[in-house]
């Protein structure tokens, strides 16, 4: 999942997680200032410089368009465009702040959690959840195909698809049965590969450690956050008016 967004040289996962959460938190708290766009731009440039170009571009594009549409609808409902910029800014912020996490493969996050002696059952569960989303999606598609072969119209606008009896008997029950089957096979497979949940000292094949590059990234994000907090609560700089 999201493999197209993964950076070639990902950041240390826990630093990426902390930066992502803190930058979002600080951004949301200080979102009322127009300088939020400078903060977003700085984060964009930083992420591009650290090799997260694909994720940065896609999130900016997606959330930017989404934010403008949502902001326009809100402005039309409120009949004023005075604070129109706040909605796109918040949407962009959410999109940009998840970039460091999107660029990290989930396996790296679980590896670093393993190194920190996080219970292995928890890291196993996290990894399975992420890895199995496409598998489950494929299973759902197969169940839908099976429904179609039995004469149920499964197009999204078809009323037959939303009929409770069809949804319950022909979709939910087979889906749960299939999941029980998959989980039984998978747990047998995990156990037969000598997975021992009690052994916390198990070897991590590819160990992950923070480097100077990661600390530089964290420092720059912290500086951006500090500047935004100071602008919002201490300096309160006037925003230059744009005259057309």
């Amino acid at each position: 999942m999201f493999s197209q967004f993964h950076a070639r040289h990902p950041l240390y996962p826990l630093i990426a997680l902390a930066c992502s959460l803190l930058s979002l938190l600080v951004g949301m708290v200080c979102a009322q200032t127009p300088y939020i766009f400078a903060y977003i731009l700085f984060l964009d440039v930083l992420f591009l410089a650290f090799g997260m170009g694909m994720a940065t571009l896609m999130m900016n594009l997606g959330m930017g368009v989404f934010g403008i549409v949502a902001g326009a609808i809100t402005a039309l409902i409120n009949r004023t465009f005075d604070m129109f910029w706040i909605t796109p800014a918040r949407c962009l912020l959410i999109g940009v702040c998840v970039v460091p996490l999107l660029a990290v493969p989930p396996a790296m996050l679980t590896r670093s959690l393993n190194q920190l002696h996080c219970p292995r059952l928890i890291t196993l569960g996290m990894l399975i959840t992420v890895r199995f989303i496409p598998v489950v999606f494929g299973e759902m598609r197969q169940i839908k195909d099976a429904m179609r072969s039995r004469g149920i119209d499964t197009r999204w606008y078809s009323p037959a698809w939303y009929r409770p009896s069809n949804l319950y008997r022909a979709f939910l029950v087979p889906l749960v049965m299939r999941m029980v089957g998959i989980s039984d096979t998978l747990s047998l497979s995990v156990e037969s590969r000598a997975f021992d949940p009690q052994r916390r000292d198990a070897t991590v094949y590819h160990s992950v450690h923070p480097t100077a590059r990661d600390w530089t990234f964290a420092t720059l994000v912290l500086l951006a956050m500090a500047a935004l907090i100071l602008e919002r609560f201490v300096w309160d700089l006037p925003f230059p008016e744009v005259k057309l």
Partner: protein
Amino acid sequence: MFKKFKVRDIVFLAVLAAVNTLFGGLAMPVMRSEIFGLQTLVTCLFYALFGTIAIMKVHKPGTLTLYGLFIGFPLLFMAPVMFFNNFIGGLIAEVITLAIFRKYDEGKAVATASSLWMILTVPLSLPFSIWFNGSSFEHFRTTAAWQTALICVGVIVLSVVGAVLGLKIAAELRKAGKLRPSEDD
């Protein structure tokens, strides 16, 4: 009271969490809606349903918390605040349910836990909504009070319906010998 989780318990919870995450995608079109709790209203039926099935299979204290953690993990990469919403909601719902029923032996304990989980995510999403939509607490208290009340009632009803459906599916699968509780293994 507390029992160790086996590998097969965790694998089942994780696979079901993947299913639940896909159903959570139903909330995507209303993610930016300013109507408080609408996102929960759209998904609560399926979350309560799969939450019930998860506890019916893994009858152990801590199941719902772990389930919330696994559901929250993919969300961590998309909307980090939602991770805490699901995880903390599951934890609080589990504590309340176990304080009342002590264990998950009865169907009503299972249904209470899974429906309470979804109901609790509504107040837990208040700070999220304030940050995300830029609304204030006053907005929920005054302007949209009737809307908020209606959504909360909807969430309660749909969560209970989801939990009851989950119990029904679990009972059917158990009768067919497909969903044995993990303690019986």
